């Protein structure tokens, strides 16, 4: 694609809806400021109802923001209708035109642009080749599998060479295996074409797998934006930590330091955790401990009691109590390790570097 893709910028965007039942206005999206670099793949991730679709539809132009401005590249696009915006959307339900065959579906946007027939033909065939649907041009949409329909939807969006591609949970109608295959495909095509993509999903592994950056949304508010790595290891709050992967929260006052680490008192047990500036003795902190970052042993660590032990194949899943705090952990490759049983008293140990203390 010769055309240069553009970045997207949202400045203090809000959208207010009226609850049809209570007749009260509420923020579906609140004061969202997001900058998306040209050519990058950004995912909007969050639980159901957090405002992902609303944000995406504001970028596409189907909804108008009640506050703030949206820019495509350097151009303010608030006042443009969807058909005048240089964006293309891939819908969750595919939204193919059921009365057209595959070729005509893909060619639709080009015909609207009144391109010459041979140019249309060439571009459609090229795109169909890219999404590996060559030979299916004359099929009707209901003669395709879900995955193939999704590719048509993708091809149709790509062929008009938009500056930005928008995806609204495009894979949620597919089975698990196909989902994994298609997301790799989408990522491959996006990188091949070098287009900016904004992708909505509530599936965190999907987000981790394909994104350059993830934007976590919570109740209409942008909670955190960062690379998958940053989001996973430096979550800004409990919501983000809990939403991405599994997290245990160790909560307690800081009772001292030990070298470059801090000591938290968790239900009477001293736990060594990572320390960052601004931590002061006496204040209470929450530390995030990932299940795969800890293990059980007989000798050193924090005393705990096993209340669940379950073999999962690649790992042994434990639930243990540290005082009154529940900690879930996954001990990988358990074949030659000791398996603890429910009721066993043992010790929980973890590398203090991998315990991240929230800054809130």
């Amino acid at each position: 694609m010769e055309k240069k893709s553009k970045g997207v910028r949202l400045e203090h965007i809000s959208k207010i809806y009226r609850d049809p039942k209570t007749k009260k206005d509420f923020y579906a999206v609140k004061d969202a400021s997001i900058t998306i670099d040209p050519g990058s793949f950004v995912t909007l991730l969050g639980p159901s109802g957090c405002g992902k679709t609303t944000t995406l539809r504001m970028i596409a132009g189907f909804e108008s923001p009640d506050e703030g401005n949206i820019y495509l590249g350097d151009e303010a696009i608030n006042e443009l209708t969807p058909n005048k915006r240089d964006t293309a959307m891939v819908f969750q339900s595919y939204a193919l035109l059921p009365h057209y065959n595959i070729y005509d579906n893909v060619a639709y946007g080009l015909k609207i642009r009144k391109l010459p027939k041979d140019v249309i033909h060439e571009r459609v065939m090229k795109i169909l080749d890219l999404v590996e649907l060559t030979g299916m041009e004359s099929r009707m949409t209901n003669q395709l599998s879900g995955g193939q329909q999704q590719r048509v939807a993708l091809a149709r969006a790509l062929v008009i060479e938009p500056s930005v591609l928008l995806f609204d949970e495009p894979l949620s109608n597919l089975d698990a295996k196909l989902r994994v295959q298609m997301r790799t495909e989408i990522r491959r095509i996006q990188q091949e074409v070098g287009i900016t993509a904004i992708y909505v999903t509530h599936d965190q592994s999907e987000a981790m797998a394909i994104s350059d950056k993830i934007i976590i949304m919570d109740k209409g508010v942008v909670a955190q934006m960062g690379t998958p790595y940053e989001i996973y290891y430096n979550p800004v709050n409990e919501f983000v930590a809990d939403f991405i992967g599994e997290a245990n929260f160790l909560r307690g006052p800081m009772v001292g330091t030990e070298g470059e680490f801090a000591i938290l008192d968790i239900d009477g047990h001293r736990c060594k955790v990572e320390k960052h500036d601004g931590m002061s003795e006496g204040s209470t902190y929450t530390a995030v401990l990932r299940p795969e970052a800890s293990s059980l042993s007989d000798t050193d660590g924090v005393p705990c009691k096993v209340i669940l032990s379950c073999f999962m194949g690649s790992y042994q899943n434990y639930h243990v109590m540290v005082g009154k705090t529940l900690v879930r952990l996954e001990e990988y490759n358990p074949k030659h390790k000791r398996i603890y049983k429910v009721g066993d008293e043992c010790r929980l140990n973890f590398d203090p570097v991998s315990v991240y203390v929230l800054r809130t």
Partner: protein
Amino acid sequence: MARGQGASLDKKKLMADPVMVTTIVLLITFLSLFILYPLAILLVDSFVGDGGGFSFSVFKRVFQIPTFTTAITNTLKVGFVVGLIATAVGLLFAYVEMYVRINRFASGLFKMVSMLPVVSPPFVLSLSMIMLFGKAGIITRYLLKIYDNSVYGFWGIVIVQSLTFFPVCYMMFKGLLKNIDPSLEEAARDMGASRWKVFTSVTLPLLLPGIGNAFLVTFIESIADFANPMIIGGNYDTLATTIYLQITGAYDKAGAAAMAVVLLCITLAMFAVQKYVLEAKSTATLTGKASRARMLIEDKGVRIPLSTLCTIGAAFVILMYICVPIGALFPTWGFKFFPLTLKWFKLVFTRYHGLKAFKDSFVLSFIAAPITALLSMIISYLVVKRKFRSKGFIEAVSMLAMAVPGTVLGVGYIRGFSGGLFHTGFMQGLYGTGAILVIVFIVRSLPTGTRSGIAALRQIDKSIEESAYDMGAGSLKVFTSVTLPLIKDSFLSGLVTAFVRSITAISAIILLVTPQFLLITVQINEFAEKGSYGLACAFATILIIITYGSVLLMNLFIKHFGTSRQIKED
């Protein structure tokens, strides 16, 4: 929290779309001018009325006319009884069809019964009622040897209207019963309830809002009906006929306007209750999808009496419809039956300008139908798929037309257009032309078309149109390349419905038609009034052939060209 910016952006986006803006402006103009304005002028006229200046004098005057006050009670009485009977019979038919094992023949009859009122001119049943049970009726005079039976009056209207309107109730109940999950009733049966007990304690309570809904719908239809009371009412006048006579007999237009306002208020009140209270409730309680097929009642003690009763009933209704074409073949109805003759048909075309009547009716309806169909699809598209400020207005006014009796609309047009807009003479040229007849046809069929269009569009995933819009298509392109092809079936059937409704319409049109146009329905009414049943039947028969023919044609057409069916399957 201010939603100002969003709203103003929405407005800017709309304004950037000239096709949408023009369409909306034209629509609002059309609806205001031809639905709201005639009703408003009725109000104005009846309050300003005789002396000038605001007063109740016209109302006082008409309420002192004894025939008018009797007509109000008559209308309400008829409406009430017809509502009860039609609802009960409709429910019985629907119950038997959905719950009892019936044979092919019976279900074929049922299907016909539900079709017939749609394709028939409104007064067919009145004609056949007179021909079967009147003074010279075949059944009363020749079979039962009763020589002075009178079908005219209260019971005549009630029977004919009940027979005309019960199929509507039957179809409504069929839809509702389909949504009752059989396991609810089976659970009650399991706990030892008898079939009757299940019906009264489970089925009936679930249907209750639906029953109220059907009752009111029939009530409104009955009140608004003009043709049947006109032919079979005799001296028993209802509001619709009284208003008609007030104009054509007493030449009292202001009085008629006040009467029309009274009639309008009654139907509007009922419509409001029906639409906003009962319709929502009746579907809200029954949203459940049937989890599996219902166990039909096999029990002979229930099955045989119920299915026999309904089969006989259905056969009787069909007989009444067939009576009209046959009646057109008898030399003199009630006196000489043989040999069968085509002389009435000949007379229709030689002496009574049959050809012109059919041409006029056909051409006017043929012009009105596509406009109506297109207009209702555009309105449905705007209402279902787009959002803009005046959407509520467009939806409300096009639905309002449903609650306006034809007679009221007719009087409104006379008052509103005969002297030009607001009696100023502006646009006076419209009155008395074919154009105003076409407009009346459109307004009368618009609500049905819009309703079916809205239902069809709600079935279609909103994102399909959005995707086309997103690909760069403008509103017009989206409508013509996506929306319309997807609701082709609905459009085609809307086309035929509009055509059939127009060509069989009478209530509003009879007040507005000028001598230069001969309309079939007006002719039928005239000959039936005069007692020339042979001619009335001949006219009616040809009308039935036209309407039935066009319905058949449409079905064939849809079968061959309707792609949307194949789309809907998945």
